[in-house]
């Protein structure tokens, strides 16, 4: 199932796509309009919590996961 990981900016989303592709994790740059406004992030097909951990190790912090719950 696809999840949408929200990042804080379009630049952060581009950065995340690059990191994940280097890690062989398929990801696509995505814009979503949520109840809290416009958001940029990445659509992934895998465990979003694990993917956020991968990103966090590279200095990219996930704001929210759609389809997987809020990050703690």
């Amino acid at each position, binding site marked *: 199932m696809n999840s949408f990981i929200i990042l804080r*900016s*379009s*630049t952060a989303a581009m*950065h995340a796509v*690059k990191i994940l592709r280097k890690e062989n994790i398929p990801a696509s*740059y995505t814009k*979503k309009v949520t109840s809290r*406004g*416009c958001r*940029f992030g990445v659509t992934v097909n895998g465990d979003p919590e694990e993917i956020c951990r991968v990103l966090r190790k590279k200095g990219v912090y996930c704001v929210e996961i759609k389809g997987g719950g809020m990050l703690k």
Partner: protein
Amino acid sequence: MIYLDNAATTYPKPSGVIKAAERALYDCGANPGRSGHRLAEETSRQVYAAREICAEFFGAQTENTVFTLNCTHALNFAIKGVCAACGRPPHIITTDLEHNAVIRPIHELARRGLASYSIAKSGKTDSELIRNVAGLIRRDTRIVVMTAGCNVDGRITPLEHIAEICAKRNICLIADCAQAAGVIPVSLSDGINIICAPGHKGLYGPMGTGLLLTDGKYPLKSIIQGGTGSGSESAEQPDFLPDMMESGTINTPGVIALGSGVAFVKAKGIKRIYKHETEICRAVTEGLKNNRAVKIYRDPLTERYLPVVSFNIVGVPSDEAAKTLSDNGFYLRAGLHCNFLAHKKLGTLGSGVYGTVRLAPSVFNTAADAFKFVRFINKTYR
């Protein structure tokens, strides 16, 4: 035509830069970081690639690399942004080598009661400059703003030593790299906290491009607010970079072409560029040194110079000399070069002398250009 006005803007631009701008206009016509359709995504990808190459070039993180309209824009964002984040009006130190892009924002802050400032005398040597800056530090000094190299006489400043002093005292060091970027190595890893650079000079990008790069140590506040494509549900400006500093649509073809310009500089190599341009300047200063009608503003005690040569023809106003040169196919800039402080120091502001003629080569100039220039000056003015 021999163009020697590259300290104002480099010309010609590398063919890769021109092609990148053209490609951006043809293929990346959507607004980056706004829409989510494929064309917007592709444009965002190209902008990100440019941001990445600029970040890497200056030792910055990609997200801490902000595209601005020019170096003045970046300096205003940096100086006023750090000042606003200080809380209390800070004391700022700058030097007598600074461009109006530095002194005017600082002076305006002081005029409004938002900061106070002191100007350090640069003297003739690096050690004098370092001593004078250190001597002005007060308990409330929070910012030092200094050029990496003066745009009038080309003097290179000892930024790495100033950075050490600033780091020990928790003072934010903002470097104006208008002339240095792309000509001498400048990196956040040297201890500089914020680098401000134009895209259109030594980085060979188009006019209308500039960069602010921060190590993130000192908080910044936004100076202009507006749409960023992020956090749109709130009246608050985003507090994260680059969005905080990039309100409104960026100069997309410009920044994509700037990325190509930085790639060009990387491929050529900064050391090679500096050596090439310095050799042209040396050929000019050597060729004119015995001509008593020419006064060159370079001090033998000063250790290092950027490839910029300021001179005057004795008894001839700088604008008239530049006009004669222009009429004969040599394009140089005359006047104060937006830097009255440096001219005051050189003695070229008042007392019958107003400004200098400035020669600044780029990678595209050749030894033959220098030879023709010297031959013309020596033939025309003796």
